[in-house]
């Protein structure tokens, strides 16, 4: 009897919690297909007469493909440079060399500087570099991230030294070992780097908000914010747009749940 009670209560609580998480997202999906619930009272639970016209509206009302292209291009720059630059830094930190402590200290103290405390000089700097309203300017501050460097370092430290020595005896240069031995053996770390840096870049809002003022250069989150201020009452189109922005992130999460979760958790602590 006692066991039964224990089983039912947790399920009940967890189902309520799950509903709180799912319902807002479901309502967005429903509204994007029907637009109905703003006008019909009481709202129906299942979408009636679903159609995709709101998605098509978004496509024609705003330069969606342009925003999409901007977001994708910036994310590609960020992801590629994160994998390459962080792997290089993580690899270098395997060796002992003069000034290593100082460099690690520099990295760790940078984790104590949240990006939002740097926005004003970062903006002025980017302006001086002539990178306002450019894809490269959007990507630059995110092109290497400290968490991801340590993710690589931890993974490289686990590679057996015998492989390193064997390659050395075969006359392989050290820098080649990174690409021929260490990276191929660190698929999990590469995955973490890709996922984390993609999410950060895709969701980024405050940085594009500051350095972009040309309509052509807006990324998707910026486009969303502008759309909201221009078309306050068009709910169907609004939520179609919201879905189009969050779909890639949700897809990545659902397809790589395990790696995703271990990635963001390993990122947690190293800040």
């Amino acid at each position, binding site marked *: 009897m006692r066991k039964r009670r224990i089983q039912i209560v947790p399920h009940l*609580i967890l189902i309520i*919690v799950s509903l709180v998480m*799912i319902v807002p997202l479901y309502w967005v999906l429903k509204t994007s297909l029907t637009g109905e*619930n703003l006008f019909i009272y009481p709202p129906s639970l299942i979408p009636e007469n679903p159609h995709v016209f709101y998605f098509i509206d978004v496509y024609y009302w705003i330069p969606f493909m342009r925003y999409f292209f901007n977001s994708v291009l910036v994310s590609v720059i960020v992801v590629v440079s994160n994998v390459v630059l962080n792997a290089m830094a993580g690899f270098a930190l395997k060796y002992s060399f003069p000034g290593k402590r100082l460099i690690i200290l520099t990295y760790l103290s940078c984790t104590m*500087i949240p990006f939002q*405390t740097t*926005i004003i000089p970062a903006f002025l700097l980017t302006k001086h570099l002539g990178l306002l309203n450019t894809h490269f300017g959007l990507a630059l501050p995110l092109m290497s991230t400290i968490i991801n460097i340590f993710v690589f370092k931890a993974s490289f430290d686990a590679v057996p030294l015998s492989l390193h020595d064997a390659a050395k005896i075969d006359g392989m240069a050290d820098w080649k070992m990174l690409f021929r031995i260490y990276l191929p053996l660190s698929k999990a770390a590469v995955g973490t780097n890709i996922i984390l840096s993609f999410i950060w870049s895709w969701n980024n809002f405050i940085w594009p908000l500051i350095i972009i003022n040309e309509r052509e250069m807006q990324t998707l989150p910026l486009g969303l914010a502008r759309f909201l201020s221009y078309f306050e009452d068009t709910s169907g189109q609004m939520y179609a747009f919201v879905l189009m*922005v969050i779909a890639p992130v949700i897809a990545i999460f659902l397809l790589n749940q395990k790696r995703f*979760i271990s990635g963001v958790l390993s990122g947690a602590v190293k800040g």
Partner: protein
Amino acid sequence: MAFKREARRIRWMIYLFLFPSLAIFLLYRIVPIAWNVVLSFQEWKLIGPNLFVGLSHYLEMIKSDVFWQSLVNTLIYFFVGSPIAIGIAIFVAILVNKPLFGRNAYRAIVFLPYPITPVAIAIIWKWLYDEKVGLINYILRSLGMVKQGIPFLQSFSLALPSVIVTSIWQVLGYFVLLTGLQSIPDDLYEVAELDGAGFFTQLFRITLPLIRPTIFICFIVGIINSFTLFDMIYIMTNGGPGHATEILISNIYKNAFTFNRMGYAAAMTFVMFLFLLLVTGLSNKASGGEAGEVHYYA
């Protein structure tokens, strides 16, 4: 001789490999922090050289009601919002860490909002909170709890809690997974049960003491993640009504990029930086300096 040349070549490789990432951090972390301090003592001009104005921005700041309001709101977010989120998360984590049918599905569902674009979440919740057509008011009305819709985001007293609830909604699953990482051996609970310890005794005598470091790590993560709060406030209330939901970063953003008061905003940024440093340092200490350890469980 060849050996020495080899060593020199490796040394070169090391510095070459470190250079790009170090350059980025230098450019976008270290230089800005220093430059920010300099800016805070200057009156920034669009054209021409900046004027040195000493501490006048700081003096203006401590006389500004908006500054104090945004500081208090930031404090409320950290010291009321975060503990509530962590509390709920611990509760959910206890449930999903027991052998329970479908617990992985529950975990995934609770975590689902975490990676979603904060701007999109803010738009969704702005509409959930809507006075006339929002889902929350619809439910409250259907249950007969209210006669008229509550204007959550337009209310001086409810706007800040409403925004905080949204940010808890997003980060909850993350905290659930973090607090769940620290596995507590089942036999501890079994022994406690045999000794007649109830749910709360178990919670306060076993669970909480054992996950103490994790709690403070959640707190630090909450601080690091707090930048998403800017996105939400920008979309949902833009700091209003009045300055009821103004936080430091939204206040800084407005002064710097709407009113072009870079120097004043820089002074506020420096205060925010010191404040974040202090809170992070204290939490790190309270966690027993074990902040790095959870890393290895992940």
